[in-house]
């Protein structure tokens, strides 16, 4: 227990968190009956059995701030000088709970009987933690690089152009760059540019077959958003603004979010709110577009991929984005043996790398522990191929599989489809 005298850092956290307590959060704390059901929904709790990973417990600092400012008892105790506002020690202790052990996957949010959106609360609580400097170095670095260099991994336009050239050579199709008046602007995640550049070649082939006018912008190509992960709306806004500006100046009709979960959250759901205005273009996830092409008969594939495979739903796309049916319809077109994990769709288990966790070095061990869930799900199906639609999930899963010495190949859905295209021969 401390008195009302908080250090500068602690009161900065307090002020930022307080400013984030809206009607939603006030109702969530009022409603929480401390039933603990959210724990059963969280892969970090399930795999460690440590009660400190109970989702609502990760919000103790915010609950204390809410109590102090929004409740009778809190105000009374505050006046008497018995405030229990979080001090620096508490913030330091909670940093691991707020960042390393929460992928903002929202699974707990769907399970809570009173409907508390715990992931939303963690996301808002991070605003205070990052403002006061209680954030992991990995995320701080990624945010800085995003602002200074334009990408969390330090990928520049030069690297992008080199990758594009290489992909043009691979697939033999010219890839349009900065083309004014295109219908679609394709965004990428730097992880794709660096680690999975085949994605670029894949869309080039699919779009050529479907006769789609598209382009990549050298001014706004990076779709990921470290600001959202670290919990800094200012940074998040600046990052998303680049993409929006690029799209506006190219005059595109729609922006395509890449195979990346939180990029979709960033550009599809958060961008208009971060910028405080509606966007003059549509935002669509690559899977939604492919699904559209499928229903228009413009996605012509031959034969099927016969090796048994499963699909991992990226949380931000499925549970937080409602893109659940699309990947299944697509998979059923190109695969003859698609097997569902249980649970799946909106109740899928997170890979353990979302919400910025994959960028936190010190969280690696915990992340591998949490991945045990996924590895068991995959083991049960006995498949040797796992398809997903998020570069970050893909990377996390590849590392996790390696850690558990599992011989399973991870493939992006767009690439899988491109491989079955009629024109792919």
């Amino acid at each position, binding site marked *: 227990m401390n008195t009302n005298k908080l250090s500068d850092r602690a009161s900065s956290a307090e002020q930022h968190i307080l400013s984030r307590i809206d*009607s939603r959060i006030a109702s969530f704390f009022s*409603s929480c009956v401390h039933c*603990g059901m959210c724990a059963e929904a969280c892969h970090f709790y399930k795999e460690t059995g440590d009660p400190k990973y109970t989702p609502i417990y990760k919000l103790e600092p915010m609950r204390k701030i809410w109590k102090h400012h929004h*409740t009778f008892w809190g105000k009374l105790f505050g006046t008497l000088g018995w405030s229990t506002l979080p001090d620096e020690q508490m913030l330091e202790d909670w940093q691991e709970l707020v960042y390393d052990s929460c992928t903002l996957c929202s699974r707990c949010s769907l399970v809570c009987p009173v409907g508390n*959106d715990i992931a939303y609360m963690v996301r808002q609580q991070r605003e205070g933690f990052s403002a006061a400097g209680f954030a992991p170095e990995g995320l701080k670095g990624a945010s800085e690089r995003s602002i200074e260099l334009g990408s969390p991994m330090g990928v520049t336009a030069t690297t992008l152009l080199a990758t594009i050239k290489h992909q043009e050579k691979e697939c033999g199709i010219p890839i349009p760059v900065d083309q004014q008046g295109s219908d679609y602007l394709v965004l990428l995640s730097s992880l794709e540019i660096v680690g999975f550049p085949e994605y670029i070649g894949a869309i080039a082939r699919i779009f050529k077959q479907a006769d789609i006018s598209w382009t990549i912008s050298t001014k706004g190509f990076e779709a990921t958003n470290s600001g959202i992960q670290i919990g800094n709306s200012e940074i998040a806004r600046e990052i998303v603004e680049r993409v929006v500006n690029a799209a506006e100046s190219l005059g595109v009709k729609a922006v395509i979010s890449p195979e990346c979960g939180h990029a979709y959250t960033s550009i599809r759901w958060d*961008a208009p709110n971060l910028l405080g205005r509606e966007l003059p273009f549509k935002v669509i996830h690559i899977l939604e577009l492919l699904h559209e092409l499928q229903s228009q008969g413009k996605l012509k594939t031959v034969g099927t991929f016969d090796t048994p495979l499963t699909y991992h739903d990226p949380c931000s796309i499925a549970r937080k984005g409602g893109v659940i049916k699309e990947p299944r319809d697509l998979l059923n077109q190109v695969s003859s043996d698609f097997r569902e994990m249980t649970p799946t769709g*909106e109740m899928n288990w997170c890979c353990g790398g979302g919400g910025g966790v994959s960028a936190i070095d010190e969280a690696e061990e915990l992340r591998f522990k949490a991945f045990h869930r996924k590895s068991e799900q995959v083991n049960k199906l006995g498949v040797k191929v796992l398809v997903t639609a998020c570069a970050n999930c893909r990377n996390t899963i590849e590392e996790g599989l390696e850690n558990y010495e599992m011989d399973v190949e991870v493939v992006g859905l767009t690439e899988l489809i491109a491989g079955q295209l009629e024109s792919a021969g």
Partner: protein
Amino acid sequence: MIEFIEGPLWTFSLVVFCVGVIWRLFSIVRAGIKTDRAPVKNSGAASGFKSIFSHSIPRRETMKASPLVIIAGYMFHIGLLILLFWAAPHIRFFEEELLGFGWTPAPYWLFMLAAALALTGSIMLIIRRLVDPVLQKISTADDYTGALITFMVMLTGCLALQESWAGLRAFHMLWVEILMVYFPFSRLMHAFTFAFSRAYSGAMFGRRGVGA
């Protein structure tokens, strides 16, 4: 003493309860909410409203993950609702003291069943709170106080039903008054705010095309 409990203390409790609950709900609404500018997949209002009710039924995965607390929770809440709104003396009380009209009470056997469900359910929940490591970690004094007062209200209510002694009825009423005064300052508020939290989340998920 009985007159005091049934007279001024009742009025006082009723006022604290009503003013307190309204103040709490008002303070939630006052905290404000920013309009979501992202184009929606489904109507937020419709999904939010639906969620207030649909969220009472757990998903299969949740049922599998936490069967005990869900069963005990159902037992307790359903039992309590029947006792509160369909016990004959309560309906008489609502008719004579509060509303001016009544409705058909539950038959005696249903009352007994409801009492058994509510009491067993709440004992199960309290025991769980005491022994489960997760609950030990997150429970506060308020959780125990609220559970204990509610339990006493139900227990004294069952005793009072015998109507053998007016003192028992007053004793029940006293616990009801304690509950009503404590209510707005506690987590018992979830009896009202659950509709808000479910609606807010339901709307958010609904706009994104996910059923909450």
